[in-house]
């Protein structure tokens, strides 16, 4: 026990671990705030779709830098972010047009992003491209500029949700009723998709493309199991997000071979199972 504690304390004194915890906490709160809205709007897979779109965008960003020396300083994450924003708008447009079922629209963009990423990286022979970091996260390599960007987007997202709290709430409660009462609901569909896109780009360094939707789904889903009101649901979601990220990261400190992304998501899943069990036990009495 003492060895584990001293090894945790040694790790916590390292700058890169501190940065990892700071961005982990920021991303946990950011994705958990959105999580309740995304789950209730039945957009749980949008995180996956947007993350794969980001992969395509980041690959294009890297390729641009490689092919055109004057653009070598362009941050591939900026290109990825721009492509994700475009993707979030297009996915929402496809879902709203009713030409696609929601899950089919997400699947189309997921495949488009993945295929673009694979195509671009293969034809540009971009061997310097760290595919592992993108797919599984690279939280230990996070820089202060990434932390500042994540903090800025957390404040931006929280502010937007605070300002439009009532309209967003009514839109996810029942869009038909919201429209019938004069609320222009389509704007909030796009707003939610764009905020999810921002959360995806910011979260890529933490859990990677493959596990991103877990951060956007599990905290909200878990809090819905045990909360007794919507207010509680909204307040408990960031707590579950934080517990998953912090415990997951401690797990990967205790077992240094465990990737933080996987540990975080496994803790999140364990919390969901525990919340579902608690709900069932409570129903018996």
């Amino acid at each position, binding site marked *: 026990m003492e060895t584990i504690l001293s090894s945790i304390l040694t790790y916590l004194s390292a700058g890169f671990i501190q940065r990892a915890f700071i961005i982990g906490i920021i991303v946990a709160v950011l994705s958990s705030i959105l999580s309740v809205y995304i789950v209730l709007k039945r957009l749980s897979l949008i995180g996956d779709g947007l993350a794969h779109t980001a992969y395509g965008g980041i690959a294009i960003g890297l390729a641009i830098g490689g092919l055109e020396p004057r653009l070598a300083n362009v941050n591939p994450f900026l290109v990825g972010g721009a492509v994700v924003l475009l993707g979030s708008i297009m996915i929402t447009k496809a879902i709203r047009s009713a030409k696609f079922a929601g899950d089919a629209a997400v699947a189309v963009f997921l495949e488009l992003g993945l295929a673009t990423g694979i195509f671009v990286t293969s034809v540009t022979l971009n061997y310097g491209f760290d595919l592992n970091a993108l797919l599984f996260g690279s939280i230990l390599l996070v820089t202060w500029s990434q932390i500042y960007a994540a903090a800025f987007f957390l404040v931006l997202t929280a502010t937007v949700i605070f300002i439009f709290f009532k309209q967003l709430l*009514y839109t996810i409660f029942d869009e038909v009723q*919201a429209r*019938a*009462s004069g*609320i222009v609901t389509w704007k909030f569909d796009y707003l939610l998709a764009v905020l999810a896109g921002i959360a995806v780009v910011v979260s890529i360094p933490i859990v990677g493309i493959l596990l991103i939707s877990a951060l956007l789904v599990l905290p909200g889903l878990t809090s819905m199991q045990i909360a*007794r*009101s*919507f207010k509680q649901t909204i307040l408990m979601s960031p707590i579950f997000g934080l517990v998953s990220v912090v415990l997951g990261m401690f797990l990967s400190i205790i077992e240094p071979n465990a990737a933080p992304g996987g540990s975080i998501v496994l803790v999140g899943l364990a919390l969901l199972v525990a919340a579902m069990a608690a709900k069932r036990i409570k129903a018996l009495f």
Partner: protein
Amino acid sequence: MISKSGKESVVELNDVGVTYPGDIEALQHITLEIPKGDFVGLIGPNGAGKSTLLNVILGIIKPTTGYVRLFGEPISPKNLRKIGYVPQIPYSKGSNFPSTVHEAVLMGRIPYSSPFPWFGREDHRKVEEALKRLEIEDLRKRKIGELSGGETQRVFTAKALVGDPQMLIFDEPTSGVDIEAKKEFYSILEQLNSDLGITTILSIHDLAVVTQLARTIICINRTLYFDGLATRFDANAILPKAYNYPVEVIKHGDHP
């Protein structure tokens, strides 16, 4: 705008038609007026376009032809706020929302409350009034997903009432509700119409309920088959045409 009955009309449809993609005509040449304070029963077979008609009135579907006026003016967010809408409960996403009854009813205040992200004292007062009128004060802290069909229906009606509506629209409100709860619910609708003077449109399948409750009956099957007083509604003459198959109405006492 004054209706045929001499009263101010709250809904006016003029030659309204709705065509869905694929040239599916849901409504054709619907012209009607609903006077203030009326209780309208909207009937027609499945797929007759009843929900489409309600959606046209609610501004959710734009008519392909013709026009709609609400409270004497073209449809706008301002006059839509004068309408309270109660959806078919089993198909409403809101019926499983993770909120308490109080929170769900409070959501009905969103179009009327301040632009700030929180609710004010007036919003909470309106919620208490509506809960009391619907006799569901004791359900205040329950989660809406845990309620019976009848209780959920009352919650959604309370939610529609908190904006002080001048018109209430109910789309098949009692599907999935037991007989006793239906009776109590209809008596509340009658009270809302007679005590508060709220114009009511009730889309429903049950002919006995329509003839008992409604002053006016509108019968459609894509086109208008009847629009007039319930007392003049000759079910045996109109229903076989509107439903497109032989219908015989058997009376129990005064009611079909």
